């Protein structure tokens, strides 16, 4: 299912335990590094970079492929994708093959074929969103920095996203 609403994204982040970040970079200037290192600070996800060109990010071992990751760690709850739109169909095929439950396409990673493929295979799909921003939207991080979370509620927060 393609998840389009904040409540759906929040539920996905709350039930996820493991995230494989495809295309994560060890260059601190890259958005993928920023997102990966932010997710680490939350201490609630089992994280791994998927990138055949690096060995590790800040001491977290990288896997050359989703297949190699799944062989050791099992199916990831979320596959977070930082790749050019033209290169993501094989990523989706691999995600389906290893039994990933959800695929998250970061800002600008938009490929209709890949989206339809993942949706058709029963994965939860998030498109053109940043997993860091969405996580911070629900855990209060955005609000802490004067950013517009869009959250309106009179209930006391119990979110762990």
């Amino acid at each position, binding site marked *: 299912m393609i998840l389009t609403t*904040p409540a759906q994204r929040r539920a996905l982040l709350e039930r996820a335990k493991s995230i494989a970040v495809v295309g994560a970079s060890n260059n601190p200037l890259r958005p993928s590094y*920023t997102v990966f290192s932010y997710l680490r600070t939350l201490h609630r996800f089992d994280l791994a970079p998927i990138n055949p060109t690096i060995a590790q990010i800040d001491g977290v071992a990288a896997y050359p492929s989703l297949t190699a990751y799944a062989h050791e760690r099992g199916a990831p709850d979320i596959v977070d994708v930082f790749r050019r739109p033209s290169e993501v169909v094989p990523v989706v095929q691999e995600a389906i093959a290893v039994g990933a439950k959800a695929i998250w396409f970061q800002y600008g990673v938009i490929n209709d074929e890949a989206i339809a493929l993942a949706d058709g295979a029963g994965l939860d799909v998030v498109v053109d969103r940043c997993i860091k921003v969405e996580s911070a939207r629900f855990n209060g991080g955005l609000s802490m920095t*004067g950013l517009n979370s869009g959250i309106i509620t009179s209930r006391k927060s119990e979110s762990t996203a």
Partner: protein
Amino acid sequence: MQDHDFGFATRAIHAGTPPDPGTGSRSMPIFQTAAYVFGTTEQAAELFQLRSYGHIYSRISNPTVAAFEERMASLEGGLGAIAFSSGLAAQLCTVLALAQAGDHLVSSQNIYGGTVTQFTVTLKRMGIETSFAPVDDLAALEAAMTPKTKLLFAETIGNPSGAIADLSALAALAHKHGIPLVVDNTFASPYLCRPIEHGADIVVHSATKFISGHGTTMGGVMIDGGRFDYGSGRFPLLSQPSPGYHQKVFTETFGEYAFLMRARAEVLRDVGAQMSPMDAWILLLGLETLPLRMEAHVRNAKAIVAFLESRPEVEWVRAPQMGSIFTFGIRGGREAGRRFIDALELWSHLANVGDAKSLVIHPASTTHSQLSDDEMRKAGVAPEAIRLSVGLEDVDDLTWDLSNALAASQRGALAETAR
């Protein structure tokens, strides 16, 4: 959590202020603290490197101030906001986030006198030049653009001329030249106009006016729409490694948040013009009634305009189609204007607008007194102009007072002696 688009009045009361997660306090607590303990040294390092969200020192961010910022971002339809100690501080820091010595701004000339002075004196001394043109003369604004121009500046409703900016035309002009449109929305408030919806990129306010609503609190705020792409090469402060912040390239690391992150992590941090938590709390309270107050301000202003237009002592009334602040010209020029103000009993003679109390001022001798006659005319202010900011009192009481003072204004030397 359910998905729903909340309306303006609901957001004016709720945005940024869910119940306090620690205590359940329904009112936003005032976090009167200078600093925040770190957990581990690792967590401290994560915060300083902008990897995680959190507070370090209240010069850079504070929970109560952040609640005000988020509410303003919500009401203006922006990505985020930064609060400052005043509207002029918000404006200065916005400029400093985009421009440095050698750069250039293009501005509407129909703007607040204090802004003209900030641009032509203080920014000029810092090496940033400004060219001015009438807000409705797009050709002249375009002719003023140079390759060093970093932003186009205008006020939604010009102070005090009442000139209304054609925001979509100005946005198109700015974007054609690869620069953002910065709009001062103080006189409209987000209730009457949301510039980002009309193409503006950045909105600034003096929060002292309608946002406070009661003339109690100095404050400013800048809201970023988050749509402008600063990665074109024209904004090296955002797209080159920053010696001010760990050699970060803000556009690369933060994407659409680049401008907000640099404006906070470098400019606010280094200028130190932050809002205090107590002031943010008062402004949050003010915002809760913004929709109600603006409706009443506008209703009263319409009644006062109609009253003035019926009076023989009034030569002209220049009221914009929007808002509750306008000017009128009194028969008898500068001297009659002085006698008029001195005869008022209920209207407060002071240099502010957007208060629940009705306010009056003679711009030529006060807010715009730093300007030359030529600059005054350019700003659209006549020497005989009197500016009114219509408050929330009973209209009958306001017109009673105006009526007496208008009569007194025409009595000339006789009235002088009587006083």
